[in-house]
């Protein structure tokens, strides 16, 4: 048997190596940089274990008002974006579930919209936002709507998968039982979509929370968190940037820990 599946073994090792290189090493380095003095970070040969630990960076970052402000703004933007994407995603997924033609064109539109270069869309979007007065506002509402549009395809496709698991006969049965379409959506579909809705919300929230490029372009002064980190890094304070980046991973880590069971228990591969 072991003879037979040698190639499989190689692939499995590649998988482990990938997990270590893309997730474990960067996270370790991030934590190390956030808590060690500057010299350590660029020492050659690289030191895996820092010699001098410090809380200086973290202290510096938390003591400025800029951080609090952009933390709150990022949270607001992500919440608005996630709510909008989940709501619209549910509507789109429902339309695509019942209507084969809507599904075809919907999936095509969603895929196509994901393929558009972000930078090419960002410029005209900035123009539009300036015109409607949503460019670089303190609340970040314009950015939130853009983030919602970015998150919508994933939310819609995720919800489409959940809708697809609900047999169409359930809707027919409820219709014959005398339910209106709104009742069907609220009392038949939604209770069965709880998990997918939560997943769509969480993914949309995180994608907005982590988004960098549009934030940089559309909120140049009223910054969200990722551009703020970028500015710290560009102005040479890598320690402070790292400390800030570490803070920004908090919601991701919370979600990963909270969802670890769902993430690991996923027997079927997606059919995409």
């Amino acid at each position, binding site marked *: 048997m072991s003879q037979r599946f040698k190639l499989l073994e190689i692939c499995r090792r590649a998988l482990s190596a990938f997990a270590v290189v893309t997730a474990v090493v960067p996270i370790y380095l991030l934590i190390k940089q956030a808590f060690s003095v500057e010299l350590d970070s660029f020492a050659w040969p690289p030191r895996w274990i820092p010699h001098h630990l410090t809380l200086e960076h973290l202290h510096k970052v938390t003591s400025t008002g800029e951080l609090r402000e952009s933390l709150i703004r990022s949270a607001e933007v992500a919440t608005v974006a996630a709510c909008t994407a989940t709501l619209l995603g549910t509507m789109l997924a429902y339309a695509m579930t019942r209507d084969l033609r809507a599904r075809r064109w919907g999936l095509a539109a969603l895929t196509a919209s994901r393929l558009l270069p972000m930078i090419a869309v960002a410029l005209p979007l900035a123009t539009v936002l300036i015109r409607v007065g949503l460019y670089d506002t303190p609340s970040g509402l314009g950015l939130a709507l853009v983030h919602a549009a970015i998150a919508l395809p994933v939310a819609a496709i995720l919800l489409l998968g959940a809708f697809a698991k609900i047999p169409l006969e*359930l809707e*027919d049965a*409820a*219709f014959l039982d*005398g*339910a209106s379409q709104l009742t069907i959506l609220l009392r*038949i579909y939604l209770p*069965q979509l709880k998990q997918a809705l939560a997943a769509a919300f969480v993914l949309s929230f995180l994608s907005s929370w982590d988004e960098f490029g549009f934030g940089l372009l559309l909120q140049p002064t009223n910054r969200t968190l990722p551009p703020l980190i970028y500015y710290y890094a560009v102005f040479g304070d890598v320690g402070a940037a790292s400390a800030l980046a570490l803070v920004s991973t908090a919601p991701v880590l919370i979600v990963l820990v909270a969802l670890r069971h769902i993430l690991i228990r996923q027997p079927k591969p997606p059919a995409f």
Partner: protein
Amino acid sequence: MAELVMRDVSRIFRSGRGVRNLSLTVEEGEFFVVLGPSGVGKSTLLRLIAGLDTPDNGEIEIGGRSVTHRARPDHTVAMVFQNLALYPHMSAYENIAFPLKMMGLGRREIEERVRRTAALAGLEIDLNRRPSQLSGGERQRVALARALVREPRLILMDEPLSQVDVQLRSVLRVELKEFQRRTRRTIVYVTHDHDSAFVLGDRISVMHEGRIAQIGSPEEVYRRPANLFVARFLGHPPMNLLRCQVAESGRGLWVNDVRLELDPPDGESGELVLGIRPQDLSVQPEFGAVKLEVKVESLEYLGARYLVRARLGNQALLVELPRSLQPGQIAHLYARADRFHFFDATSGERIGQTHDKASTVTKG
């Protein structure tokens, strides 16, 4: 009184499938089975009656009122779906209560009607359990109770027994038939399963390509199939169908170069299709007066019986016998003359009195 009347109803999809110029009448208290292979339009028919779809043409009446163009279904029709379509997030109780809640009934009345209907459907379980916690048979009964609870005039069933295993299916079948005998509900039941149709139906409507090929009691459609489609479709193994020529004298038949001493229906000549079921042939001369000389080709042991593949003339003939024959052997088979069926070779229609219900033969 006629509970359901369909007049010249058509609903044709782009694929060309659907229901074509279909007319039928279901009497009050009747168990009416629609039988046909899959894709023949059975489910379309049911959805039209339920009001889940609207006919392109024709009229549908339920209890004397036209429902062809109703905006939404009223309480006269309920349906049990193939996958039962129980609401998975609701308990059995909530499932049964859902139609009543939609009617806006009060809590006490709902409770009372749910309990009563559950008992009627033979549900003796804790109604707080979810569908996923119920057995196949229990789920079936919950679906039935949900359909019953609004006391519809007409219950539609779309092969609800197709997803339980064979053993349970035969138990539930008997139970359903008993239930219908007791309560005299009007039921339209769609299936592709001959056994279910025969066991359940007061009358069976055999469907073929969106049309009705024959309507009649189980005995009628089995013993006097109206055309070649019904003859082939009902019965397992299927009826033997042999091309034959009426002898010039008008008495006797030629199957290729073999002569059968069997008289065709009066006035027929030329080519016919002769049908005989594998079970209606025997090796015992006392079984019937018509004698067939066949060559045994091979045989299969089926446990209780042998399935013999033989040749008459150069046409294949299947025979079910309780005893074994030798391959290669020439055997004599006997059958009663009234067990032969004649069909027109071009139209495929039965020749002889198809609709004479009085003449239903009792087997013996």
